[in-house]
């Protein structure tokens, strides 16, 4: 048998045949012969390479370089560069190498353990996976105070962005004697780039319902609302099916399992205002008013919707509760570092090979999230920045890539975990344009109730527009920081307060991008 130092596998399928693969192959062979390489390099025909719409494609072994969309003109360059000099032609190579063994990390999942496995529209599937065991245990064997204490001990913190300890939040409302208390799920997932709650609700709606049941019982609420954004049609449908099935199985309704506890769950559909993710604005909207934030105090836990004590929690937070009840607080603290126990769901997007979603331990480094689960930066490009925590997040530069993603470690860099969105940008991204789009979003979403936010956003928008046009000055950059700082200190709610993070971090770490655009340098 002849020894070849390299093998070329050419994919033969309908698309490549239509793209003229046979002619390409013949010419490639003659080019190899011309360079006296035909004895060293072997051309083999194979079936489809598993690619899609890539015309003439081939993989070179042992280098494992896959070339796509090849043209006859490319042959001399490939032969000269790759086969003679041993330098793969990156211009033609496949940007996203297929990773055969993508790890979904199911063994370390808590909130998404069933998503992608069970049928979300069949309650029996959830029951077979051990569903509603926690509800049974909580309702029949635990007192509400025990549940609150268990959740406190677990160290579970709010996954909506602020990271407030969940057990502590409950302990404000639980002891209050009131004729009616409410439990509200904030499923108004409006943070740009975030879709974790959507996956929880459409992949495993019963997990959320079970969490709602236990939490409502813990705080003594007999009515629960799921405030969900209207665009999440599939989530709404699946939650409706899930609620109907839960009533049928006696998991909801009056005198559940003869315990004397009643619970009803309602779905309230939001109309797509970003500010309604803020809990008091959400409550206003629930009451049928314009979604404006309220003054605190009184805090919603004491006086919320319709002046009733109301606990508002995020979807991901509550989806953790069934696990904590079944397996105990100690099991939960086994995930993640001290003070930030549990897992976190991240949505990864931008200039990565495999955008999507992952659930990993708290404290996993940003680099691991991007490389392992996002498939790394698009080949041939370098990491420039990651916008972590959604639009109201922080631009992290390369030096911060090894930061551990948990509440405490991020705070050291004045960053926040936020909603768990990770927007990755490579060197082609202009941070001025990114910040412009963030500011434009906030300007559009500011509710107008308070002056610092309404006017501050407009002023920032005017300044960044000026810089974009190349008419900005050094003074404009300084003014942006002053305005953002003022907004942080004086705005009524988190919407106006959070813009300081993207503005300051962009100007601090990527000042060069801004200086390039100034009129006087």
């Amino acid at each position, binding site marked *: 048998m002849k020894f070849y130092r390299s093998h070329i596998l050419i994919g033969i399928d309908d698309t490549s045949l239509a793209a003229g693969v046979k002619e390409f192959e013949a010419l490639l062979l003659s080019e190899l012969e011309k360079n006296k390489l035909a004895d060293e390099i072997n051309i083999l025909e194979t*079936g*489809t*390479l*598993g690619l*899609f719409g890539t015309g003439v494609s081939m993989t070179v072994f042992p280098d494992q370089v896959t070339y796509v969309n090849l043209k006859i003109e490319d042959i001399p360059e490939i032969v000269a560069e790759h086969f003679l000099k041993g330098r793969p032609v990156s211009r033609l190579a496949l940007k996203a190498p*297929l*990773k*055969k*063994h*993508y*790890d*979904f990390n*199911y*063994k370390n999942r808590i909130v*998404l353990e069933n*998503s*992608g*496995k*069970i*049928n*979300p*529209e069949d309650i*029996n*599937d959830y*029951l*077979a996976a051990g*569903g*509603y*065991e926690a509800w*049974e245990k909580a309702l*029949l064997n635990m007192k509400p105070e025990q549940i609150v204490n268990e959740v406190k001990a677990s160290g579970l913190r709010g996954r909506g962005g602020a990271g407030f300890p969940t057990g502590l939040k409950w302990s404000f409302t639980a002891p209050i004697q009131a004729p009616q208390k409410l439990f509200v799920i904030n499923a108004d997932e409006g943070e740009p780039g975030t879709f974790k709650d*959507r*996956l929880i609700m*459409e*992949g*495993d709606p019963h997990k959320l319902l079970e969490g709602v049941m236990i939490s409502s019982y813990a705080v003594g609420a007999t009515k629960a609302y799921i405030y969900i954004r209207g665009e*999440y049609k*599939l989530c709404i449908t699946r939650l409706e099916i899930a609620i109907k099935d839960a009533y*049928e*199985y*006696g*998991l909801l*309704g009056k005198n559940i*399992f*003869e315990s004397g506890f009643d619970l009803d769950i309602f779905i309230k559909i939001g109309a797509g205002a970003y500010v309604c993710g803020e809990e008091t604005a959400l409550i206003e909207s629930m009451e049928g008013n314009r979604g404006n934030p309220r003054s605190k105090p009184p805090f919603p836990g004491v006086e919320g919707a319709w002046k009733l004590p109301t606990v508002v929690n995020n979807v991901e937070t509550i989806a953790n509760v069934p696990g904590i009840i079944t397996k105990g607080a100690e099991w939960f603290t086994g995930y993640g570092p001290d003070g930030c126990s549990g897992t976190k769901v991240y949505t990864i997007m931008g200039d990565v*090979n*495999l*955008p*999507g*979603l*992952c*659930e990993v331990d708290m404290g996993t480094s940003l680099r691991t999230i991007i490389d392992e*689960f996002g498939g790394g930066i698009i080949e041939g490009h370098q990491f420039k920045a990651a916008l972590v925590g959604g639009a109201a997040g922080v631009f992290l530069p390369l030096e911060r890539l090894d930061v551990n993603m948990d509440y405490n470690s991020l705070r050291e860099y004045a960053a926040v975990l936020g909603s768990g969105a990770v927007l990755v940008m490579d060197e082609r991204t202009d941070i001025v344009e990114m910040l412009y789009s963030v500011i434009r979003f906030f300007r559009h979403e500011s509710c107008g109730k308070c002056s610092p936010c309404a006017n501050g956003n407009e002023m920032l928008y005017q300044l960044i527009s000026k810089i974009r046009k190349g008419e900005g000055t050094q003074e404009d950059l300084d003014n942006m920081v002053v305005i953002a700082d003022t907004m942080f200190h004086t705005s009524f709610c988190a919407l106006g307060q959070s813009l300081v993070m993207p503005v300051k971090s962009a100007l601090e770490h990527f000042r060069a991008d801004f200086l390039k655009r100034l009129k006087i340098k």
Partner: protein
Amino acid sequence: MKTLDELRKIREKAQQDMKLRDGDNRFKIVVGMGTSGIAMGAREVMKAILDEIAQRGIKDVLVTQTGEKGLSSMEPVVDVIESGKPVITYGNMDIAKAKKVVAEHIVNGRVVNDYVVSTDK
């Protein structure tokens, strides 16, 4: 309205049913039907699988749906589960690929390597 005992019975039955289902069926095909999957054509893929199975008169395969696993960029995603073997996850599926998976993997027992994105447990 059901009592706790009834619920426990339902759970046990559901668990047994699932075992039985797995025992009766050589394969379980699970199509990811999240928003991303549906947007990328998961419904058509599901239909193509069902059609192909009906056309070939295959009886011992269970086709079901689930939510998203997380690999949004590879949707539609289809899992082929055979008891005792690692789950084979196919990505970037379309109607033609779905039919090929039924023909190759389900009928002939050969995994279509080109479409595999993960072989998670």
